[in-house]
């Protein structure tokens, strides 16, 4: 009896509303089902592919962070530990010293350390690196390519759409799974996968 009374109360307006409500609800369920089927439970993060990168320098300026989240990473495994480092020294310098005018890095973010004759080790000082990629270009041109630009995930805000990806001329930015968030090029690949 109670049910019948309820039915009687239902006027035309309510009936239409209810119809729309159920169809929207069904639509939402269907949509989420469709999306969940395509979904990948992992989160994605942004990373750049050093093999596509042309070191244009936009990473330094286009990131939403005031000091770009893109930094130079040193893949020590690829480094030749050269004395005459193409990533550290400006080409065509008169004296081979560590004076600021001889350094390629505009912020002196590369630290040079003597190991043994004739090897030198180069460290990136993350706080100083602006991600301009000048050293990367030098290292690619004259050395082994062990200096590579990467998104530092401790700093990256992981915007829904990366502001650098939007302007990257080489289309090097892509979404990668968060559990394997770095993309080094060259023979370092296997090494980083292991670790």
């Amino acid at each position, binding site marked *: 009896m109670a049910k019948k009374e309820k039915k009687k109360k239902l006027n035309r307006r309510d009936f239409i509303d209810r119809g729309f*409500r159920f169809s929207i*609800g069904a639509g939402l369920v269907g949509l989420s089902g469709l999306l969940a089927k*395509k979904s990948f439970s992992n*989160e994605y993060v942004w990373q750049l592919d050093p093999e596509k990168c042309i070191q244009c320098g936009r990473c330094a300026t286009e990131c*939403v962070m005031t000091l770009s989240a893109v930094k130079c990473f040193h893949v020590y495994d690829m480094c*030749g*530990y050269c004395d005459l480092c193409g990533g550290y020294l400006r080409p065509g310098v008169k004296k081979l010293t560590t004076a600021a005018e001889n350094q390629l890095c505009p912020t002196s973010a590369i630290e040079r350390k003597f190991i043994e004759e004739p090897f030198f080790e180069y460290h990136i000082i993350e706080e100083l690196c602006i991600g301009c990629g000048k050293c990367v270009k030098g290292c690619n041109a004259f*050395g082994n390519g062990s200096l590579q630009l990467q998104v530092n995930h401790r700093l990256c805000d992981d915007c829904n759409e990366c502001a650098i990806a939007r302007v990257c001329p080489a289309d090097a930015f892509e979404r990668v799974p968060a559990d394997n*968030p770095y993309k080094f090029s*060259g023979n370092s690949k296997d090494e980083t996968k292991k670790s």
Partner: protein
Amino acid sequence: MKKSLSIIFLLIIFSIQIYNVIAIQRFPKPEFESGHTQPPTLTPSPRAQALDILDVFVLAAALSIVSWLVIKKRSRKGVFWMSVFAVLYFGIFREGCVCSVGSLQNVTLALFNPEYSIPLTVIAFFILPLVYTLFFGRTFCAGVCPLGTLQDIFALRPMSIKSWLEKVLGVIPFIYLGLAVLYAATGTDFIVCRYDPFVGFFRFEGTFMMFIIGGLLLLIGVFIARPYCRFLCPYGALLNLVSRFSRKHITITPAECINCKLCEDSCPFEAINKPVVLKDKEEKPIASRRFIFISVIIPLLVLIGGFTASQFHENLAIVNPKVRLAKELINNTNYGEPNEEAFEITAFKSAGQSKEELYKEAAEITNQFYIGGWILGGFLGLVFGFTLLSLSVFRYREDYTPNKGTCISCARCVDYCPVLPEDRSL
């Protein structure tokens, strides 16, 4: 004999070196005599995934609490404190991304691009507010969305604006929604994220333009409450449509409206429907003739809209970087740079794709924009048509009721109602 041997030896050395150049390992890895060990490459890990799951839980909890506060508790104070929480958690702590407003683009991209697989948290951020809206009205806007709540806190001296202006500006979110879907579906850009005005305030850093637009919107928001939500937000447009059919919705009065008019000016968003006196009603023949006329021209509007938008498909497509690159290459304009080769062209040359392939790809994308233009224009024609139709519909009302579409359930009007609930237990 010796000479030829030495030449062969040299050749072998050269070939090894050439091989090395290809592998980029120009200099061999040193072997240290002093026992120095090579340091590892540091790879700082991203934000823990557990935090993303926590975000979804906080979202669901916040939606539930705000819905409860609005529907059951009827407490403006509670909603206000939830908005402060939303700004602090979803805004400042989470730094704004992913938000529900932006997630609609991820969903579109996932539907149109088979290669993009969407994370579950993003689906949750898109679906949960819509589901809650279907049940309780736009409680998401009231106290969960960081963009909306930030403006809500700044709505200090709200003024009323003309209702025709409100209607006209209310069409903009649908245009924005249509464009956002078009650009996301073609994989071009996420324009809602690109022109997000407030994310800079949450992160305390951003581009100059972002702060200018955001600051301007907040300044306008002091007088015209929530300008972004009402006249821009594309997700708000979706919620507006869904909320019209919500199962429950905030009511101004807890019992029976006594037409005291106290709530009349309480809504800063002009979302209260006033009672309509019967004598205001137009004469029936004129009204029904207009209704029929508009109903007939809606299909016409859809066609006109579709045709117009599809005519602009090349202008719409130029935003796509591939289309732009193809155009620059064909016209040989080098991105307007007189001296050096543009980075895009350098990158294109080093990537090794042939020009023909690029042109083919660009033509395909442009064609997608042509089809998308028809759909976008048709959709906008439909929106215009229904807006006109809604203006000419007369609905008789005795009480003050919230407009279920535009009401964002902020519960401001509740405090103005002098009527006491009949039964406290309700």
